[in-house]
């Protein structure tokens, strides 16, 4: 509190010094900034209001009235599960990879290679998701079929590889891989930025104490970048949760809740389900889809909130 007071005092001092009034540039700047902030909030509130008002009829309708004849919760639960499963799977694959790529670029690779590699990783972010979807269905899916057969035979005792393995490769595992590639550039860009800002003094100090390169990275770079990596990962998770086209094209969605990642029956995700069913829907079915959109909105807000909490806690330590 006291720090805030001193800054305002300083501001007032400065203002009095320059002729009793704030200069015009200051006013324009502060007004623009406030307007920008208000617009962002207005957009967010606007989307929330839209989702609630349009989804409300489906939320309050009895299960007999709803087009599927089941309650809203039992309709949305498998979708929410599928959304989270796809997102978590993508994170498990992408985050370690992104951190490794970022470390390689910032601390291991020679400058020229680092520059080129960084450029190519960033380029991954520029590929439209529909292209990823087509790549998944025509290239990665078929290529993954033998691998998934192998997983079923050798590791079938683990529930996630239970099988029977899909013959077309349109599975949750392939979707997780594609989503991982999609979010990789986002996570690694954030990680790269912060890793390269690790204070030199810390790094040199660690090496002066006899640390190897890995020990130096482990004791200085990683702790320094931890909270930024988490927030980068959450950005990526946000994209993975909301990804629509790639999932809608690739995934064979016909199952309820299952952890089996290589089978032909997979739970759908909320976003893909909306994309697949919206064109042929009318009346309450549309409200139902929008209500599932509200659930996705809440899930994304919750993950972001959680991420903020983790970051706040790790910063406090």
């Amino acid at each position, binding site marked *: 509190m006291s720090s*805030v007071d001193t800054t305002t005092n300083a501001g007032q001092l400065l203002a009095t010094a320059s002729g009793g009034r704030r200069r015009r540039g200051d006013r324009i700047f502060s007004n623009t900034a*406030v307007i920008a*902030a*208000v*617009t962002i*909030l*207005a957009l*967010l*509130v*606007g989307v929330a*209001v839209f989702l609630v008002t349009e989804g409300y009829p489906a939320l309050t309708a009895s299960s007999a009235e709803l087009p*599927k004849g089941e309650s809203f919760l039992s309709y949305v639960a498998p979708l929410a599960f599928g959304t989270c499963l796809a997102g978590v799977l993508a994170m498990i694959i992408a985050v370690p990879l992104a951190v490794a790529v970022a470390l390689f670029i910032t601390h291991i690779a020679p400058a020229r290679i680092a520059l080129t590699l960084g450029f190519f990783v960033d380029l991954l972010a520029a590929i439209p998701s529909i292209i990823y979807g087509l790549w998944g*269905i*025509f290239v990665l*899916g*078929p290529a993954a079929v033998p691998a998934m057969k192998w997983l079923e035979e050798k590791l079938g005792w683990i529930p996630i590889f239970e099988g*029977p393995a*899909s*013959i*077309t*490769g*349109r599975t949750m595992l392939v979707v997780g891989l594609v989503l991982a590639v999609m979010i990789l550039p986002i996570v690694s860009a954030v990680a790269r930025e912060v890793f390269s800002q690790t204070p030199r003094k810390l790094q040199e100090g660690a090496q002066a104490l006899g640390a190897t390169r890995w020990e130096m990275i482990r004791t200085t770079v990683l702790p320094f970048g931890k909270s930024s990596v988490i927030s980068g990962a959450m950005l990526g998770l946000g994209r993975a949760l909301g990804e629509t086209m790639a999932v*809608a*094209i690739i*995934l*064979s*969605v*016909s*199952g*309820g809740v299952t952890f089996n990642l290589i089978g*032909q*029956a997979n739970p*759908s995700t909320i976003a893909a389900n909306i994309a*697949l*069913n*919206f*064109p*042929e*829907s*009318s*009346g309450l*079915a549309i409200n139902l889809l929008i209500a599932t959109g509200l659930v996705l909105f809440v899930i994304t807000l919750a993950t972001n909130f959680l991420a903020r909490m983790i970051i706040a806690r790790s910063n406090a330590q």
Partner: protein
Amino acid sequence: MSSSRWLAVFAAACVLVLGLAACGGSDSSSSSNTETGSSENGSGGEALSAEVSGEIAGAGSTAQEAAQKAWIAEFENANGSATISYDGVGSGGGREKFIAGAVAFAGSDTPLSEEEGELGKAIKRCGPGELVEVPDYISPIAIVYNLPGVEELKLEPETLAKIFNQEIENWNDPEIEKENPGVELPETRIVPVNRSDESGTTENFTDYLSQIAPSVWTHEVSGEWPVKGGEAASGTSGVIEAVAAGEGAIGYADASQAGELGKALIKVGNTWAEPSPEAAAKVLDLSKEDPELEQGQKNVIAFEIDRKTEASGVYPIILVSSLIGCTKYKSADEAALVKAYFEYATSPEGQELSAEASGAAPLSSALTEKVEAAVGAIE
């Protein structure tokens, strides 16, 4: 101090949103005003000129999209000053837009029905005129399969229903072998492929299964695939792609899109029928009009498709898509344009064009006559 400032920002945001919402509200009310106003002024009964002009929009079924594109191109060639657009938003979306008055006509894979309350709303939308609904696009749905070495596959309806209900799990099942003597069937697992998006193809296929094999197929008829656990793919092209990719896969898709894939022969009566446009068109000649779907509307032609027919040379797994319009529009010009376009689409030339463009089955001459009479009611 800082928290109260944030509160102010948040309040401002809310005010802005409410303002926008208010704008939206007034916008829609004003547009509906103009609409009712002009439909009251609407007058018809003007004599048709040979060439029509103006601009109309339609929306709906993606199944008819290719045919619509071909019709529009030819129609605009013949009528230089007419512009027609068709937006393939899906049947449900098309019906909704038509009822809301956003488009002049719709294309739908399923007839308007009272069950969802759409028929009543559509009749109301057309007031003081009447509703027009005529079939314009008939297409056979093929059962496509991927079994290398199996050139010909014969399936009885019951077996087909069991396969898609996941009751028969391997290709060398005695039930399939019994129908295909002399064919070397592999032990491969059967993977039924269905649409993951809601579609008229699924609705027509499940309607067939529930009519022909009610003891096996106990699911409700719906545009959304009812059996869980199969392979699912989005769109016709997705199903074709999935069947082509997986050995042992079997799926259902518009026959014109089947490409190199094998198409199963289905038992009808005592013969084996293959999906051809001619065999598909014959089904409607054998079907009766459905009074429940027509509700006494004299310009509505909606069939209860006779999927259980035993006549030879008929292929009963078909998709029937319709044009939906009104007899009266806001202006006589608009009505004349809709009429001329409907007439063209359902005419023998139009039907030939859609057969070329998308492998559809032309309307039979008996049906064409009925359709002509209904379309002729547009003023």
